C-alpha cells in the first residue's frame, strides 16, 4: 500500500479566506487525483494531474503536481460555504486514497 498523507487533517476557516491542502507521499505516482466528498455522499472527482510540475485551475481551485510527482497541493481562493467537505487525493491507479482533509467554511 502506498501511503498518501494529507495535511491538515481538519481545517475551519471563514468565508472569503484562502487555504491550501497538501498531499504527500514517499512514492512516485504516474498521476494523482483530487476528489471532494460531501456528507452522506460518495467522493466526486475534481481533477487529475499527470505531468510533474503541472498546474490546473478549476474556477477558484488551483491544483499543483510536484516536480518529482510525489506530492500535490490544492489551493482554494476566497472560500465559500459550498466548498465545505472532505478533500481526498488518490494515486497509483487511483485505488489508494489519502488520509483526507475535512474543510469547514464558516459563513
Amino acid at each position, binding site marked *: *500500500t502506498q501511503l498518501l498523507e494529507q495535511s491538515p487533517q481538519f481545517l475551519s476557516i471563514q468565508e472569503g479566506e484562502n487555504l491550501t491542502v497538501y498531499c504527500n507521499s514517499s512514492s512516485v505516482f*504516474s*498521476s494523482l487525483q483530487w476528489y471532494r466528498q460531501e456528507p452522506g455522499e*460518495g467522493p466526486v*472527482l475534481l481533477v487529475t494531474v499527470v505531468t510533474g510540475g503541472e498546474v490546473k485551475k478549476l474556477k477558484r481551485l488551483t491544483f499543483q503536481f510536484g516536480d518529482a510527482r510525489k506530492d500535490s497541493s490544492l489551493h482554494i481562493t476566497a472560500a465559500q460555504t459550498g466548498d465545505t467537505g472532505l478533500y481526498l487525493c488518490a494515486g497509483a*491507479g*487511483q*485505488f489508494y*486514497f489519502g488520509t483526507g482533509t475535512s474543510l469547514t467554511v464558516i459563513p
Partner: protein
Amino acid sequence: DTAVSQTPKYLVTQMGNDKSIKCEQNLGHDTMYWYKQDSKKFLKIMFSYNNKELIINETVPNRFSPKSPDKAHLNLHINSLELGDSAVYFCASSPMEGRGLAGTYNEQFFGPGTRLTVL
C-alpha cells in the same frame, strides 16, 4: 438516472449475522470497486472487478465475498459480522481498469454509500 446505486443506504445488524450490500451501475463501465470508509474517513480499497473478474483483493478477511453476476453489478456479502466491520461501504465504477501503470488513469464514480452498524 442514478449512475451508481447501492442498497440499502443504512444497515443495522447484530454481531454474527450475515448481510449483503448490492451495487449497480448504469454507466456501461467495465470496472467496479468496493471501498470501506472508517470512522476517521479513511477510504480503503477492498476489491476491484473488471468484466466480472476479480483483479484486486486487498487483504480483506475471507468473511467478505464479492459477487459480480454481470459487469453492471457487484454485490458484497459479509459473513459472521464483527463490531469492527461497522463503517460506510462505497461501491464505485470506472470506464477502464487502472493499475497505476504509467499513463493510465481514469475517473471513478462512487455510489452514495451504505452505512453498516454492527451491534
